[in-house]
Every structure is written in structure tokens, then in C-alpha cells.
């Protein structure tokens, strides 16, 4: 069993009508129950506030540099996430379909790292080379 991140992205310039928010809440609760019943639920979180609530922290020389705002300047920003258990990508994608319908937002599916550390180091250096 692998854990997958289902990351939700949202354009904060587009307001969400109240009625839709209610729908989303109901849908998200239902999906949480479904994942829980299937033993697939690990964790979920919705971010409070839009990209203006973000602060980026970097190490710069011996010091730390703080910048106001999100890490990337894009139209759509991370709005929340689910962590789920799934046997493989196909199962994770099936849950992601339910999640995108419930959240009414696009979802990026990513596997969480579970392998051996030296494999990961080898893969990452291969990517760079």
C-alpha cells in the first residue's frame, strides 16, 4: 500500500458562491466517510486563507530570508490536500476522481516516498544529470 497526496488547486481570484461552498462541504464529508470506511483515509487539511497567507522561508548564507507570499507566482494555488492509502496509481486516480467531484477543484495526484533512500538518491542524481 502506498500513500498518495491529492493536492487541490484553486484560483483565489474567482469567488466561490455560498451555495457551492455548502455543496462542497457536504461532498467532502461524504468522501471522508467513504475513505474512512474503506480504510484508505490517512489525513486531510484545507488551507486557511489564500496565497496572501503564505510566507516562504529560505536559508541564505548563514541567515534566514523570509518573503511574503506564495512560493510560485501562478494563477492557481494550493488550497488543501488529502493523504490517502491506495494499492496503486489506478486506485489513487479513482479516489482522485471522487475528490475532484466533491471539491469541485482540479487535483494533482502524487505518490509519497516510501522506497529505499539510496534508490531515491540515485534517481534524483539521474534526473539532474
Amino acid at each position, binding site marked *: 500500500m502506498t500513500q498518495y497526496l491529492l493536492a487541490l488547486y484553486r484560483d483565489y481570484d474567482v469567488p466561490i458562491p455560498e451555495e457551492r461552498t455548502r455543496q462542497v462541504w457536504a461532498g467532502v464529508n461524504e468522501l471522508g466517510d467513504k475513505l474512512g470506511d474503506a480504510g484508505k483515509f490517512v489525513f486531510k487539511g484545507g488551507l486557511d486563507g489564500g496565497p496572501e497567507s503564505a510566507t516562504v522561508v529560505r536559508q541564505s548564507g548563514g541567515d534566514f530570508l523570509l518573503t511574503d507570499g506564495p512560493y510560485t507566482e501562478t494563477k492557481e494555488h494550493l488550497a488543501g490536500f488529502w493523504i490517502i492509502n491506495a494499492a496503486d*496509481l489506478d486506485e489513487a486516480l479513482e479516489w482522485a476522481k471522487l475528490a475532484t467531484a466533491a471539491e469541485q477543484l482540479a487535483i494533482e495526484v502524487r505518490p509519497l516516498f516510501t522506497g529505499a533512500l539510496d534508490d531515491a538518491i540515485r534517481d534524483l542524481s539521474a534526473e539532474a544529470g
Partner: protein
Amino acid sequence: MTVEAVFRREYGRCVATLIRFLGDIDAAEEAVQDAFTVAIARWPADGQPPNPGAWIVTTARNRAIDRLRRESIRDERQAQAHHLYGSAAQAAPDHPSAPEEDIVPDDRLRLIFTCCHPALNQHAQVALTLRLLGGLETPEIARAFLVPEATMAQRIVRAKRKIKTTRLPYRVPAEAELPGRLAPVLTVVYLIFNEGYAATSDSFMRLDLCAEGIRLARVLAELMPDEPEVQGLLALLLLLHARRAARLSADGSLVRLAEQDRRLWDAGLTAEGQAIVRACVQRDRPGPYQVQAAINAVHSVATSFDDTDWHAILTLYDQLYALTPTPVVALNRAVALAEVRGPAAGLAAVDDLRSSGLDSYYLFHATRADLLRRLRRPADAAAAYAAARDLTANPVEQAFLDARRAALGRPDPAGE
């Protein structure tokens, strides 16, 4: 059969089996290549084994096991390799000498659906399919698709890594998912063939890609005999490929369907394609590939362009448009309409499509040009030929369009 011929025929099947066994694409490729290296060394002296594919699989598997032992892989890594693809990989190392029944056709089907998984982009799907099922080397694939070798290598490496890190399953989709999952598989095979047929570069047709597309379509048709669209795709490719010798003249210029010497059409491929189309018609579960095959089957029975049953073709295009209402289908329908009701009706239908995004498609302008020529509007036709020429990068197509434009003032060779 030479080792090379065995390689071409058996590579995909062997890699597919080894992936199931090892749970890792790179390890499978390495093992199969090892086995072929052994074959090159041994077969000329020892003689070729009666079942070369099974010999390769057995040798590759034994080599892979030796390698795992030699490298004294740590327990946890082995455990990890096993969980990647589930129980199939777990059972295998205990049976290193299991004989030839390991070659089950399902393995290639698993591999095709993995290569063409919708989580991979279309470039990656095409490249992986050619690499893993076709056994083509990365530089060959890069050349075929006119991208730098490093770009193609990276494309393949990334796709393989995505399969591995995301635990993209190695399985044939269930019946319920099949319609959605089959579509990208058929598209990939069609794209491979089409890249060879309508090549965008120096050589007009790259027959090796056409042959590879047909080979893959045959594999699919054999593995999924009850999927009418798979049969339809094979029939379509066979009927198109049958015309290859007539499409180019002796001096390398393009010959349109209207002027092709139909005696040059490959009778064997044509007959095979027609037989599949007949079976599809009987089955009566039509789809876009079957209808396109049927259109080409109608062309294939006509002794000349004028003798073609254009009413049947127009009806089939209507059916195709109902299934896939795209501007390109509408354009082809307009060509058939011009044959049934005259060039003015055809031109009106083509002009209706201008706003649908076809303005940047060279065949839109080439089709208009031809209809304008037939309507004796040479100035408009010349402008349309010029517009078409600017939109194709294929020198053979360019030469064809230049020649048509230059011939506008002269008497029409087709006698229209």
C-alpha cells in the same frame, strides 16, 4: 531466421514477460538484451532453438536471477521490488526454471496498456510503445519523430520513472474501463503508422514506422479479437498501406488518389483489409476506425477514381461525422460531397469550415485550391495553393502543391 529477425518479432513479448517477472522495466530490458547477446554468440554455432522466444525468456530470466544473486541485493530492496507489482513478481523467483508457458499473450497486453496509460502524455505513450513493444532503440525513435536524441532519451526515462514511482499498475483494464483505456492505445498505434505515412520531413513515407504500426495493430487484433475497433484499426492501416507503391511516382513526387495507378496497390493487403471490414459490418458495432476502414474499402474496390461509389463514401462520412464531429472529418466529407454533387457544393461545404480552426491546416487550403481549379477560378486557386504550401513542412507535399499551382494555366490533365 536471423537473430535480428527474432529480436524484432519477440522483443516486446519477452520484455513484457520479464516485467511481470521482475516488476521493473529497466531490469527487464537489461535481462532481455543480455539474453540476445548470448543468442548472437551461441545460435550461429549451436543452431537456433525450436522456440526462440521462449529460449530468450528463459535465458533472460536466468540471467536476471544470476544478477540479483551476484549483486547480493539486500532483503528490504528485494521486498520493495516485489511489492511494486504485487504477487506475480513475488512468486517468480522461487521457480527459476519454470518452462515456456511463461509466455502468455496477456503480458504484451499488460505492457501495451501500461505504455498507453492516460496518466502518461501522448509523446511518452508513443515513445514507450515503440521502445518496449517494438524494441526500437532510442536513437531510432528520435530520428523517426525528428526530435534530438537527448530529448527522446529523457522522455523515455521520465515516463519509466513515473511508472515506477507512482506505482502505475501493470495490468489489463477491467471490461468496464476498457472503452476509455482502449482509445489511447488505438491512437498511439495510429499515430505511429501515420507518422510513417504522412511523414513531416525529408522522406515522404517512412515505411519502417508504417510497418511497425501495422505490426502493433496485428498484435492488438490477435490479443483482442472481440474488440471491433481494434479490428477496424488494423483494416484501416492495411488498406492505406496497400496503396504505398502508388502514392509516389518514379521521380519521388506525390500521386493523389485520383491519379494513382491502382494496379500498383498491394492485392494481398487490400484483400485482408476488405475481409476484416466485411466481418466488422456483420458484427454491426461501428466505431470511427471501422468506418474509416470501410471508406478505404470502398476506394479499394473501385477500378478508377471516377468509378468510385461516392454515394457510399458520402454516407460513410456522414456516419463518421456523427461518431466524431471534427472539422477534419467535415473537410473529408466535403471532398466526397464534391464528387457526388459537384465542386460548387463541395466548395460551399469547405468554406463553411473556415471558422472552425482549419485555417492553419494545409489540407484545408489544398482542398479549396483543387475545388477552385475545377470551378475555373485559377487566381483564387493559385492563392489557395500558395496558402497550403506555406503550411506544410513536407518537401514532397510542397513540390506537389507547386506543380499543381504551376499547371493552373495549362489544360487539365484529369480532363475536367
